[in-house]
């Protein structure tokens, strides 16, 4: 049932437009410039939804972000939950529904784009109302770089909701002039539809810009829908205005009950009358203006109920002249109506007079709360202003200041004056001398005459206000025992607050959590202070003596999609690739993530699964020739006269004795003696080395080297440089590798005598200058060929071609893991976890006994590291050679799967199990260690594993067990080296 509530004149809407939209299944029409809320009200629709707990009808209460009730879910063009009707700009084709508390995320992928952008300025001004505009203009005129953000679709702030004149012109003329000048000033950025939601230290302000939502179906796809602005400012001006505060009374939640300032906004900004017969209930002068303006617009305004005894004389007279009965010293005691307000019960505070007024709309004003959120987020102390019944900024901050209504000033000229002052001070603090002053215009707005009264909640009993029979809104949903709502979104009442204080809670933070007041989408913009006031009254305390809650970001809700920005899909996290990546892709490689790197895991052929591919790749490496891309290994060039001395400290091995031309395997430990990385060290010249690190630790190791160099031993003349990506590294592995290399490097004598194990040579491979290292991570004869990365692909393709007669096979990391595990080579980070010493790994041979000191050495002598029951790296052979042990599987001695030590309750067992029924717990099973690596081996013809095991080396030959689900796999403990124990194969 709709009707036309659009006034014949006024509003900042395009009356020639017709935007069709659907709300709760109802086809309606609005105008360009409407919000969903104003369009609904223009159609006479007040009720948006029902409440979350009691199912009571709820309508539109505000005209901005403070709206507690009118939650909607947009269905078209794309589903978006938890929006307020008051902030959704209307567009043609909008489909939306009212929401009961919770939104619904869609399963559909979001086709929209999101991004973020940095902006730097001297002064950021939040809010483009009268204070913010004056601040921005003043700062801009001084030459400062200015960013002005405002959450509305156009500048003007509170002026948009009035018909005030400034300097004898409609106020929007003043706004237009200021905006035009700002637009024309270089280095001024004015951002509309942009809500600053967080202010942080060092002048950092985060703002959400809704850039294309208002275009609905016409939103261009290539434009980011939302943008997070990351604003860095030297100074911040907070001109965020104020939110009107409601008053709590019986049945204060019916559709048709609305904030008085919101009604003014609907009138002036949208040309909408919010009702046919409108009552007003206030504690201050501002609602008189609403009453007068509505009456002037032809709306029937029968009564104005003022809780104060002193009526403002001029405003009161203006009301009288328009036939509005002003009841001083009166309050609203209750309301009637099913899905819409029909009657308002009023009574005098003295209790001798009560009446009922027929109204379809009731405007409420309990005063104004300065929007101090950002100021508080910055750590600014708040002060309770008793005259306002609200908090205002209570201190000066060195880099932020509030101005206008956000600072507690409510007259437009005061706001402009304060804004100009804040803009000037901010620019000056940022190093700019003031420019031409911004003239403060003359305003025609009605001045405040009588101070506001502070009234949180109309006194009275929940079930018998002023003695009258009080019947809560029974026909709808469940019946609350109190219908004096503090937080409408949470359906939390005065009784709920009193229950909290009655339970002994006094801190507002506690009450908030107990009652959930202030925890909904609106974060208590209308309810927070009411709750604080009611708590203070209940405890007999003064709000001025109580600590306000701290406001935390975000000020308004921010979609996660916006926060994610463009860090999603392929850009979610950097994907690092080697110079050979495209080849791997073209040849069907499956990849695995190693840190941010994509590494080829295996190269399945038609019809192969990973298992089959890995067996084939392993066989090629052991029997023929194979190659892999090892370019991801970290490479660090270390040079300088003291390089050897540094490396002696960083590695457990002795590196200073390494001869030029030779290579040594090295282990690095932390000061606690635990292995942090391993790799090879190549001595290039007397004072130059090349270090390799594991793929995942490249950056860490370079940082580690620099840390010691810069902070402990700055006297050492050593320079470390990452060259990881400069080189492409290709291990050429297998008994036929020598032949393949010989084909491509005719200048290189690749015989075992001329090119021995753990030596390197520079030469030319496939016409490319190369450094060839004879190292092996597989136990086979192998050459690691390094070339400038630009030539990596040429090298790789030449190797593939030259190896073709030998069946050369590319292999991935999975095969590399199997090959090295067969040889018992641990992988740092897989077989170690930061609690493993070189001795635990059986690598005492890599720990120098000769060096006086190196990092980790002293810790090896700590009693903890000498315990005989430390976990050692060992091999495990499952009794069933087809059983693949799970990596991470625990190792136990028991040959039967024990009961869990703690009795688990089935989900069906009665809660609160009787103590007497509790089963005596089994003693826990001793975990002896765990499986770190587990593979199926082509060379061994069976499965095997590496594991860390308590006193492992003393247990070799023992039979132990590894649980796999409900089963136990028997295993035999072995040495780590399972293949070619003599090491005969590496020399070919």
């Amino acid at each position, binding site marked *: 049932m709709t009707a036309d509530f659009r006034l014949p004149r006024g509003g900042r809407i395009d009356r020639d437009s017709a935007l069709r939209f659907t709300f709760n299944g109802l086809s309606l029409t609005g105008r360009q410039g409407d919000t969903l809320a104003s369009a609904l009200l223009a159609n006479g629709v007040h009720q948006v939804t029902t409440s979350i707990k009691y199912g009571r009808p709820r309508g539109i209460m505000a005209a901005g972000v403070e709206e507690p009730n009118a939650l909607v879910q947009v269905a078209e063009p794309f589903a978006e939950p938890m929006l307020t009707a008051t902030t959704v700009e209307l567009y043609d084709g909008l489909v939306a529904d009212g929401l009961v508390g919770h939104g619904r995320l869609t399963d559909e992928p979001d086709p929209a*784009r999101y*991004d*973020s*952008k*940095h*902006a*730097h300025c001297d002064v950021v001004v939040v809010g483009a109302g009268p204070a913010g505009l004056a601040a921005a203009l003043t700062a801009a005129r001084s030459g400062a*770089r200015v960013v002005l953000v405002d959450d509305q679709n156009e500048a003007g702030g509170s002026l948009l909701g009035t018909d005030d004149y400034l300097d004898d012109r409609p106020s929007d003329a003043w706004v237009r002039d200021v905006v035009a000048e700002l637009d024309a000033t270089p*280095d001024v950025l004015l951002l509309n539809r942009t809500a600053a939601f967080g202010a942080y230290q060092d002048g950092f302000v985060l703002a959400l810009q809704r850039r294309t939502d208002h275009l609905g179906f*016409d939103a*261009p*796809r*290539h*434009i*980011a829908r939302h943008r997070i602005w*990351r604003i*860095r400012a030297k100074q911040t001006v907070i001109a965020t205005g104020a939110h009107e505060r409601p008053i709590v009374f019986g049945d204060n939640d019916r559709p048709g009950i609305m904030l008085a300032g919101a009604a003014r906004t609907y009138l002036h900004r949208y040309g909408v009358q919010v009702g046919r017969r409108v009552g007003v209930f206030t504690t201050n002068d501002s609602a008189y203006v609403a009453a007068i303006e509505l009456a002037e617009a032809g709306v029937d305004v029968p009564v104005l109920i003022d809780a104060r005894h002193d009526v403002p004389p001029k405003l009161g007279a203006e009301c009288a002249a328009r036939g509005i009965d002003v009841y001083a010293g009166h309050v609203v005691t209750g309301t009637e109506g099913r899905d819409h307000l029909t009657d308002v019960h009023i009574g005098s505070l003295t209790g001798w007079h009560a009446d009922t007024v027929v109204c379809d709309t009731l405007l409420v004003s309990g005063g104004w709360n300065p929007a101090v959120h950002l100021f508080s987020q910055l750590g600014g102390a708040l002060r309770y202003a008793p005259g306002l019944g609200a908090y205002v900024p209570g201190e000066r901050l060195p880099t932020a200041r509030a101005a206008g209504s956000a600072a507690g000033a409510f007259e437009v000229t005061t706001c402009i004056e304060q804004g100009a002052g804040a803009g000037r001070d901010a620019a000056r603090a940022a190093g700019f001398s003031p420019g031409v002053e911004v003239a403060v215009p003359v305003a025609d707005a009605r001045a405040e005459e009588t101070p506001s009264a502070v009234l949180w909640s109309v006194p009275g009993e929940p079930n018998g206000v002023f003695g009258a029979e009080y019947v809560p809104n029974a026909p709808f949903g469940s019946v609350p025992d109190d219908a004096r709502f503090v937080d409408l979104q949470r359906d939390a009442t005065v009784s709920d607050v009193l229950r909290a204080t009655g339970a002994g809670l006094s801190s507002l933070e506690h009450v908030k959590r107990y009652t959930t007041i202030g925890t909904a989408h609106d974060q208590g913009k209308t309810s927070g202070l009411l709750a604080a006031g009611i708590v203070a009254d209940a405890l007999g305390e003064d709000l001025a003596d109580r600590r306000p809650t701290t406001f935390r970001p975000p000020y308004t809700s921010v979609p996660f999609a916006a926060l994610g920005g*463009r*860090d999603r899909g*392929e*850009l979610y*996290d*950097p*994907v*690092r*690739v*080697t*110079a050979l*990546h495209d080849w791997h892709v073209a040849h069907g490689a499956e990849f695995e993530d190693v840190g941010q*790197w994509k590494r080829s895991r295996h190269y399945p052929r038609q019809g192969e699964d990973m298992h089959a591919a890995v067996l084939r790749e392993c066989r090629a490496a052991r029997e023929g020739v194979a190659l892999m891309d090892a370019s*991801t290994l970290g490479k660090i*060039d270390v*040079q*300088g*006269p003291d390089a050897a001395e540094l490396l002696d400290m960083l590695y457990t091995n002795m590196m200073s004795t390494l001869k030029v031309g030779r290579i040594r395997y090295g282990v690095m430990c932390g000061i606690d003696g635990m292995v942090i990385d391993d790799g090879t060290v190549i001595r290039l010249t007397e*004072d130059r080395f090349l270090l390799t690190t594991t793929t995942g630790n490249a950056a860490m190791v370079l940082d580690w080297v620099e840390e010691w160099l810069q902070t402990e031993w700055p006297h050492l*003349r050593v*320079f470390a*440089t*990452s*060259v*990881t*990506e*400069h*080189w492409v590294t290709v291990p050429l592995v297998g008994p036929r590798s020598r032949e393949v290399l010989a084909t491509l490097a005719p200048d290189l004598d690749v015989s075992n005598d001329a090119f021995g194990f753990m030596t390197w040579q520079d030469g*030319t491979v496939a*016409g*490319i*200058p190369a450094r060839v290292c004879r190292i092996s991570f597989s136990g086979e004869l192998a050459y690691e060929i390094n*070339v*400038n*990365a*630009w*030539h*990596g*692909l*040429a090298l790789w393709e030449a190797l593939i071609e030259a190896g073709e007669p030998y069946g050369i096979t590319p292999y991935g990391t999975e095969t590399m893991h199997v090959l090295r595990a067969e040889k018992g080579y641990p992988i740092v980070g897989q077989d170690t976890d930061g609690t493993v010493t070189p001795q635990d790994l059986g690598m005492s041979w890599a720990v120098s006994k000769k060096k006086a000191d190196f990092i980790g050495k002293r810790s090896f002598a700590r009693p903890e590291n000498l315990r005989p029951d430390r976990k050692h790296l060992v091999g495990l052979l499952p009794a069933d050679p087809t059983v693949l042990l799970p990596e991470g599987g625990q190792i136990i001695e028991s040959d039967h799967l024990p009961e869990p030590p703690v009795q688990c309750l089935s989900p069906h067992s009665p809660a609160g199990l009787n103590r007497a029924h509790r089963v005596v717990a089994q003693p826990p099973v001793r975990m002896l260690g765990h499986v770190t690596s587990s593979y199926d081996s082509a060379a061994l013809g069976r499965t095997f594993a590496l594991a860390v095991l308590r006193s492992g080396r003393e247990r070799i030959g023992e039979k132990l067990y590894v649980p796999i689900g409900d089963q136990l796999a028997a295993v035999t403990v072995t040495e780590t080296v399972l293949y070619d124990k003599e090491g005969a194969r590496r020399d070919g």
Partner: protein
Amino acid sequence: MTADIATRRSPLDGWTSRFTELAPAVRLAERPFLAQLTLRLTDTSRAAAVSRVLGVELPETPCTFSSGTGPHGPVEVAWLGPDEYLVLAQPGLQRTLESALREAIGDTHGAVVDVSAQRTTLTLSGPRARDLLAHGCAIDLHPSASPIGTCVQTLLAQAGIILLVRDADAGEFVVLVRASFATYLAAWLVDAGMEYREYREQPV
């Protein structure tokens, strides 16, 4: 003993057409195969000798770079740390410059490392180049904050970069990125630049 130039492949080989889509708002191109050398120098008395080799003074102010033309043609030297510089020169000069620099610094208080393939180079210019960078770079690139000659090591999106400001007013920048991050960064730049393509009407 030089490798065949025809078989060289740069990290962003094949991206040219995607980069071209950003024009005219942003002109983005890879400038591959530049000679790049890390120069470390703690002995400042050798700075003059280095300058002679390069024909460019070493930048003394942190976060700046110097440029000029010397015996080896156009050269840029970027400050990377109190004793660390990155020398950028024309393709093919890395070996020549490496030995010339090594000779200039002596062998006790410095180092020279060929890092030509460690990073690749992107040039960005055009009216929206500064905007494009602002989507992922927290550095203030306003000409007043980042004048010509500024060199910063920072993050662009989630990749570490070295950024040279040729002319912030005119929107001319050079971005050096590690080769393994190059395709990520290229994809990121192309994606961010979508905003600045000419508006196309939606099909009716």
